[in-house]
């Protein structure tokens, strides 16, 4: 994958783990010089304001490090709930699935 980092969140994260992921990913972007980050949240059954904020932070931090972030695979029930909660993830690019997310990243860095 050379230019991109792929992250698949596979478990219900507690808050400290979410912060750890945010820090680790930001460090890895700098270390690898990755131009894009793809975060697959298709296994997540819930995104609350804490995890939503983490996704926004990762997008903002990667942007500062000259990398694009795309969040893919959000379940419809999660999307409905997030918007009702009051979060629309401003600043976070999203795509329906991994394939479309990769297309978006590839197009963005060419």
């Amino acid at each position, binding site marked *: 994958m050379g230019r991109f980092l792929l992250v698949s969140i596979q478990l219900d994260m507690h808050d*400290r783990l979410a912060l750890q992921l945010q820090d680790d990913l930001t460090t890895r972007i700098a270390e690898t010089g990755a131009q894009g980050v793809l975060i697959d949240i298709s296994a997540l059954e819930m995104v*609350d*304001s804490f995890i939503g904020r983490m996704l926004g932070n990762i997008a903002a931090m990667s942007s500062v490090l000259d990398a694009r972030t795309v969040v893919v695979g959000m379940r419809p029930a999660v999307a*409905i709930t997030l918007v009702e909660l009051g979060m629309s993830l401003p600043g976070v690019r999203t795509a329906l699935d991994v394939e479309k997310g990769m297309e978006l990243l590839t197009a963005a860095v060419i």
Partner: protein
Amino acid sequence: MNVAAAAATFPLTAPEHIVIVRQAVRQRAVEIGFSLVEQTKIVTAASELARNTILHGGGGRACIEVVLNGSRRGLRLTFEDEGAGIADLALAMKDGFSTVGGLGLGLSGARRLSSEFNIQSAPGKGTRVEIARWK
């Protein structure tokens, strides 16, 4: 409103407990036949309120009950702490108001995700938030 089953109480003293409460609420929501969207809404509301209990209340507990209203079944969740309490409830309920650098969506968002929402708090007296969601 009648309680249909024994209440389950969970401690909320560490961030890891939020996950345990989320999973317990999900399990109850599945058991009483909530749709996937209903499950997700009540679990997300529970997550926000559980975090508030820990961050603002200095820890407390969550209580999960299956309730009946005529033939309707629902879930009632109660979050209680003996922390500092809230001086200005109207302000605390506003979108975007936070005292811990958060997004300020916890209370207001949880209210939007619930069918019923009730909060009692006073400075020095702790906080009690009760929500219900009906099937």
